[in-house]
């Protein structure tokens, strides 16, 4: 299914805003997969799919602690691409294909962040003498240039994700059996849950917070069983 052009434009604009929010401006957490996926779902008129993929990528996000200059995948625009892929396919097939497209887009997004930082480093290094003059216009030019480059990077990652979404449906949707689609979804959802648990335990550590984690886990399990 080819999305109408106005929806594609809306997704690319949203993916770009999400990509810029991750590091550059304003870090209000629209880059979190939960938010990126839900709004992408709303754009497509399919909020449940947006929520579901948002949850999958939010769990994967727990694997990352963005401290210092650490390198990490970019799951915001990735979730937008995942939702666009899943929207056109039914049920479990959509979940698996969407998550796969999102993972590849997330990997590509992470690589572009590293490239952008290297480019920024070269530009700042070249302008070192001008910066030492204390000219505020030089500062503003370097800074705005960095912001614009990040916006361009985020837009390119989002477009890349949308192209993958467009390719994945006819290429993989047609050859995957129902069992294969389920296996794909199982593989990605399972690793997302494992990444969520492992990432959280890294944050929690072995101190007193571990008891709180265990208490939460027990409470969550009790509610899950009770609701069944």
């Amino acid at each position, binding site marked *: 299914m080819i999305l109408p052009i106005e929806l594609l434009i809306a997704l690319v604009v949203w993916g770009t805003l999400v990509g810029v929010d991750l590091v550059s401006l304003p870090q209000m957490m629209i880059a979190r997969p939960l938010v990126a996926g839900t709004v992408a779902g709303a754009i497509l008129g399919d909020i449940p799919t947006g929520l*579901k993929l948002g949850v999958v990528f939010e769990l994967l996000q727990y694997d990352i602690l963005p401290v210092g200059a650490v390198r990490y995948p970019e799951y915001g625009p990735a979730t937008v691409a995942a939702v666009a892929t899943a929207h056109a396919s039914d049920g479990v097939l959509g979940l698996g294909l969407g998550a796969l497209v999102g993972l590849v887009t997330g990997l590509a997004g992470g690589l572009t962040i590293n490239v952008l930082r290297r480019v920024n480093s070269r530009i700042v290094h070249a302008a070192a003498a001008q910066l030492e003059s204390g000219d505020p216009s030089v500062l503003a030019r370097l800074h705005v240039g*960095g912001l614009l480059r990040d916006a361009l990077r985020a837009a390119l990652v989002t477009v890349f994700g949308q192209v993958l979404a467009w390719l994945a449906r006819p290429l993989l949707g047609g050859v995957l059996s129902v069992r294969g689609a389920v296996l794909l*979804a199982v593989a990605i959802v399972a690793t997302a849950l494992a990444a969520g648990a492992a990432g959280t335990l890294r944050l929690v550590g072995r101190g007193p917070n571990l008891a709180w984690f265990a208490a939460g886990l027990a409470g969550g399990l009790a509610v899950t069983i009770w609701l069944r």
Partner: protein
Amino acid sequence: MAAVKRPLARALLRLFAVQGSYNYERMLGVGVGVAEEPLLRDLADGKYRPAVARGAHFFNAHPYLAGLAVGAAARAEHDGAAPDQIERLREALCGPLGSLGDRLVWAGWLPFLSGLTLAAIALGAGWIAVAAFLIVYNIGHVALRWWALKAGWTHGTRVSIALHHPVLHRAVALLGPAMAFSVGAALPLTAAYLSAPFESWARVALAIVAALSFLAMRLRGDRIHGLRLSLALAAVALVVGIIWP
């Protein structure tokens, strides 16, 4: 008072983009210089440009708390502190601001609210949970940025007083357990929510793969992480799915 408030407001707005030119050479330095510049405009002619240049030197910290360094350095420039003292102040703030911000936000406030949101979605709250997450998170986010800038501007070179504020330490002490509890509770609820569309054999497979993946990430966390493992297992599932009709 109004004469001070306007530059502070400008600095705050610029702080939202403090990582806009993030790079491996000066890290947040250029962004910090841009944010500090409105607070330096009323310095005497011979002091303004050297102060702007100092502001753009290497700096790295948590972005939400960078305002503390911006305010403190600008205040120190106004108070006539020696240039090397201001440089030392900035250097001394990098570690504590990074560590405090990471514990308070990245390992506290953010995963705490994210865990609550995941649980709420799994329980059927839908997009309203996501909207509530955005609003509540950003109340804390904006308040922290504003407090940091104002505290830095108020205390100048004695900014360590602000870093020892009891509310900050109480928040870190509370958010650790709250985060652990909320994400712990969210995990089983989320597992049930995501596995709902699967048949029973697929749910068993999901539990086995999740358990093995968790073990792999715990035992070989240095080499195996979520993205790498997800892609590897997805590739295997794709191959199996194509050759096994």
